[in-house]
């Protein structure tokens, strides 16, 4: 390893990784199918455990000789793994189109198509989660889907932070022993016995898996002189951590990676998050640095090797889901900084090394988050912004001042767990190691509910009767009547949504118990209860509010133009909406230009967003989820504002039928935030924090020139300090690339708020003429990643 510099090693591995083609893989699916067939009579949890163990024993493995962190769930990198036990239907329909679909393509080998259809599909037909839910509840779900989209219907549970600390303190051997001890307890139910047995089986598998890597490394060392030392060192590490809790930093990081690989092999789910890695790895790091067995350069190399690994597992979604969550994000979310157990600002060498790794690699994973608070050091803040300025959009920022108290107050989470919160998926908030947050239970499209309230319960796009007929814009005499009808539609769909969510949860309990995951989620081991059955200490369910910004803008228009100023009648507005504003240019111009919009620090409009989000949040508190936990809300969509928008007709805010809704979740509608970024923060700051206890997303776009100088970075640090003071839960900065600006030139309406700043001068980008826009584009130095 002396011969290879960090940069060289990482670039070499990175290039080799990116060169590899993505394939669909049915290797594990075949193993799972065989195990299920051989063990038909056994309980599901045992079958699941045996199937995982068999995969850990049999799946082909591969190692790159330069790797300092080894392991993957398939031999090839970035393979799309098929899990027939959770989702069978869509795979069959999409085998031929996977290589050519518009989003997230995967190559498919011809032989695999045949095997899938002849061996795998016949066994799982009518047995997978997706099949069973579809057979039993398909019509029920699709009847409400344009208002309430029910998720988690075709894959296992993810969006979970395992107890990494526990895993590192114990390792698979000690966890196995603990389960064996538990199994000796008296008065265990059958279910509990099976649960402990299943854990023992999976931990066995984990140990075998690590030993297999150790053996392969030894074999490779025998044939490879150049990397012999490296390979033998790695072989030792893998062998050691199979039987022991890790001791060194390198062992700890390797052990952690195996944990995530195995979690993905068991569940093939979106997002298992390492959480606060700079906290729990620090002890290992510090001990080795103090001993002199590790230097900073080696530590950073190990970290960057791990960073590469985070990019080797991708999540193959069905075509529709890929539209909602484009770019196969797998959501390895790492949160740095934040608060320690006493509420003091926390940071250490590792926090900075993680930022450095992000800066060096510029890859989409891990999803790096910085937890900010009043006492975050200026150093960490500025370093984070400097990494953002590199243009990858990361890290994103979370706000302890907005999150910690909210978790304690509105979710009854213990203060020590709230202080230690982390992020899963994109922006979802969670406690670490003890929570099945079910953070993406459903998305509730308030804009569709408003559409139904305006149009007698009928869909504007199809004319189909979808909701209740409480009236329409042509019948309401007052704004209050309209508001009551809107509330009525929300209530109607909420009841149906809750019922559907319970049915999905029951499906997971019946079909997808997850013993390996349960072993690293507190209190499952204690209770002898699988995580899907409510074994976790916290059992939440998150519903996303879609999208308050459009609701505020639309309701503001209805209130001001129809009921206050009476410039147009309700009937005129309804007709304009039904005609998608065709033939109504004056009404379209008025709704766009004569009424204030959310995101401009205009209190009465912003408060409409708050009012309806709160109405929704409050109604949810009347329900509990199937595991007995609380429902709560998030305000984020990732990319779902596009397909969600496709379901909604024209809206009173001037948005045309089927066009996207506001992006983000807390963000204003594209281009409508004309008063600038400080006004956006003030508006967003009006959203109460309980509305985003499941996560909020504020997306802001800037020209790279804002970050170009040291001065610019300092000003963004000030901006973020105020963001912390205003108690906004989340913000991420998109530094615009050349391509974005070219797009802004073509579609100015989406980028109206984009400003160009020169001393004593301001102008909007989209109001400059083409040549001047080109001038700015030429100045924009970042190319797309």
């Amino acid at each position: 390893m002396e011969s290879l510099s960090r940069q060289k090693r990482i670039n070499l591995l990175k290039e080799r990784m990116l060169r590899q083609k993505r394939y669909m893989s049915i290797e594990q699916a075949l193993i799972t199918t065989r195990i299920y067939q051989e063990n038909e009579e056994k309980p599901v949890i045992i079958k699941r455990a045996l199937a995982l163990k068999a995969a850990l024993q049999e799946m082909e493995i591969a190692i790159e000789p330069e790797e300092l962190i080894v392991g993957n769930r398939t031999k090839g990198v970035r393979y799309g793994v098929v899990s027939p036990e959770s989702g069978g239907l869509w795979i069959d329909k999409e085998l031929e189109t996977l290589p050519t679909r518009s989003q997230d393509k995967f190559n498919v080998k011809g032989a695999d198509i045949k095997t899938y259809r002849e061996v795998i599909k016949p066994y799982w037909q009518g047995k997978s989660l997706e099949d069973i839910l579809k057979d039993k509840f398909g019509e029920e779900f699709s009847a409400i889907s344009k208002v309430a989209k029910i998720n988690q219907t075709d894959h296992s549970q993810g969006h979970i932070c395992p107890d990494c600390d526990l895993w590192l303190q114990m390792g698979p051997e000690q966890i196995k022993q603990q389960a064996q001890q538990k199994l000796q307890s008296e008065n265990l139910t059958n279910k509990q016995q099976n649960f402990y047995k299943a854990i023992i089986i999976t931990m066995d598998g984990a140990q075998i898996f690590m030993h297999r890597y150790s053996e392969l490394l030894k074999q490779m060392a025998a044939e490879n002189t150049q990397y012999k030392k490296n390979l033998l060192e790695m072989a030792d590490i893998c062998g050691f951590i199979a039987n022991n809790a890790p001791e060194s930093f390198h062992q700890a990081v390797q052990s952690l990676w195996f944990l995530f690989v195995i979690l993905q092999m068991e569940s093939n789910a979106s997002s298992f998050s390492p959480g606060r890695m700079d906290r729990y790895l620090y002890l290992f790091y510090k001990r080795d640095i103090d001993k002199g067995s590790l230097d900073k350069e080696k530590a950073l190399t190990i970290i960057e090797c791990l960073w590469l690994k985070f990019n080797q597992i991708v999540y193959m979604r069905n075509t529709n889901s890929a539209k909602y969550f484009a770019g196969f994000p797998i959501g390895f979310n790492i949160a740095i900084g934040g608060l320690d157990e006493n509420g003091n600002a926390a940071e250490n060498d590792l926090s900075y090394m993680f930022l450095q790794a992000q800066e060096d690699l510029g890859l989409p994973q891990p999803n790096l988050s910085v937890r900010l608070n009043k006492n975050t050091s200026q150093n960490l803040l500025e370093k984070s912004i400097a990494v953002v300025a590199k243009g990858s959009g990361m890290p994103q920022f979370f706000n302890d001042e907005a999150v910690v108290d909210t978790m304690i107050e509105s979710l009854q989470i213990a203060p020590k767990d709230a202080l230690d919160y982390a992020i899963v998926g994109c922006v979802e908030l969670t406690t670490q190691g003890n929570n099945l947050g079910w953070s993406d239970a459903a998305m509730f499209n308030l804009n569709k509910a408003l559409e139904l309230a305006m149009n007698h319960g009928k869909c504007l796009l199809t004319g189909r009767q979808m909701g209740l007929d409480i009236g329409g814009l042509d019948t309401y005499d007052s704004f209050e009547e309209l508001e009551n009808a809107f509330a009525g539609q929300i209530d109607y769909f909420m009841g149906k949504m809750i019922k559907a969510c319970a049915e999905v949860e029951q499906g997971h309990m019946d079909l997808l118990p997850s013993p390996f995951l349960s072993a690293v989620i507190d209190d499952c081991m204690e209770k002898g209860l699988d995580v899907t059955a409510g074994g976790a200490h916290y059992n939440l369910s998150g519903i996303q509010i879609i999208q308050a910004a459009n609701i505020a803008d639309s309701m503001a228009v209805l209130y001001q133009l129809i009921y206050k100023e009476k410039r147009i009648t309700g009937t005129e507005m309804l007709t304009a909406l039904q005609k998608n504003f065709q033939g109504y240019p004056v009404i379209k111009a008025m709704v766009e230009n004569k009424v204030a919009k959310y995101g401009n620090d205009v209190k009465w409009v912003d408060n409409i967003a708050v009012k309806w989000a709160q109405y929704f949040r409050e109604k949810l508190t009347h329900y509990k989820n199937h595991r007995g936990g609380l429902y709560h809300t998030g305000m984020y969509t990732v990319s779902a504002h596009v397909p969600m928008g496709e379901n909604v007709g024209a809206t009173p805010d001037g948005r045309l039928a089927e066009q996207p809704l506001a992006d983000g979740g807390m963000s204003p509608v594209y281009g409508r935030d004309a008063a600038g970024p400080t006004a956006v923060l003030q508006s967003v700051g009006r959203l109460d924090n309980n509305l985003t206890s499941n996560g909020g997303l504020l997306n802001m776009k800037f020209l790279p020139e804002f970050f170009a100088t040291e001065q610019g970075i300092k000003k963004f640090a000030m901006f973020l300090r105020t963001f912390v003071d205003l108690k906004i839960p989340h913000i991420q900065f998109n530094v615009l690339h050349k391509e974005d600006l070219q797009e802004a030139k073509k579609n100015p309406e989406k980028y109206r708020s984009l400003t160009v700043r020169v001393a004593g001068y301001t102008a909007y980008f989209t109001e400059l003429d083409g040549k001047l826009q080109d001038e700015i584009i030429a100045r924009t130095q970042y190319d797309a990643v």
Partner: protein
Amino acid sequence: MKNRALIFDIRRFSMHDGAGIRTTIFFKGCPLHCIWCQNPEGIEKNARLVHFPAKCILCNYCIKLKDNAVTMENNKIIIDTSKVIDAAEYEYICPSGALRMDSKYYSSDELMTIVKKDMPFFKYGGGVTLSGGEPFFQADFIIKFLEKLQLAGIYTAVETSFFAVWEKIEQALPFIDTLFVDFKIYDNGKHKKYTNMDNILIKNNIKKVLQSKYSNKVIIRTPLIPKYTATKENLSLIAETLAKWNKNVNYELLNYNPLARAKYQHVAYDYCFVEDKPLYTQAEMNSFYSIIKEAGIKNFR
């Protein structure tokens, strides 16, 4: 309108008009008329009704108003400003926002309400910048307003051409934390030719302020305009003179702003360049700065 000021723009999140995150208020009216002016909509001292054809949907609502001030010829809106009785009515009636007043009157209380919205940001080092146009063109208003800002604990900055009565400047100085003063052209004849006014008053004011107890909060700026101000001769004369008046003077060169041209489609003036001039490169900026350095200026940015 003594107690109110005519403002043509208010911009929150200004990043280049002083320290921190600022709100910049653009005061309408300027005694100078530089042929490169980057805010030409701020030169005229009166509020005007303007029409932005790009936004217009040709709905004809405006031409139906009783005063007949707006007419349409060949799908083009023509405004006879002298006939406008109630400009606000035009703004209200226009559904697309194509007809707009180019400026509005604000009382100092109204302005305070707006700037105070960003107090949470100013806390970390930002504040309010008065720009224009020429803020001292509405001197009595700004003196009182600056005092109010300072009383509210807001850090103040002013961007000025210094074409102003010294007594007014003197009254404002105690309430200004940073004063940006343009020194555009040294030669009086050229100054008059390109800015429409001579520079004797400006030079006198600069000399006075640089030799006053307020000198350390003054930053003299020269906007670099190809051919007109960005010449070796002009820059060294300016720099030598400044260094003579105060060897510790703070001085700054502002790179040419090619975007200035964008605004000329909405005003009755012509921009000084027909062809596009690019920004100066870092190397060119460095060589300008070496002229300044040679002339004896130490504090430059």
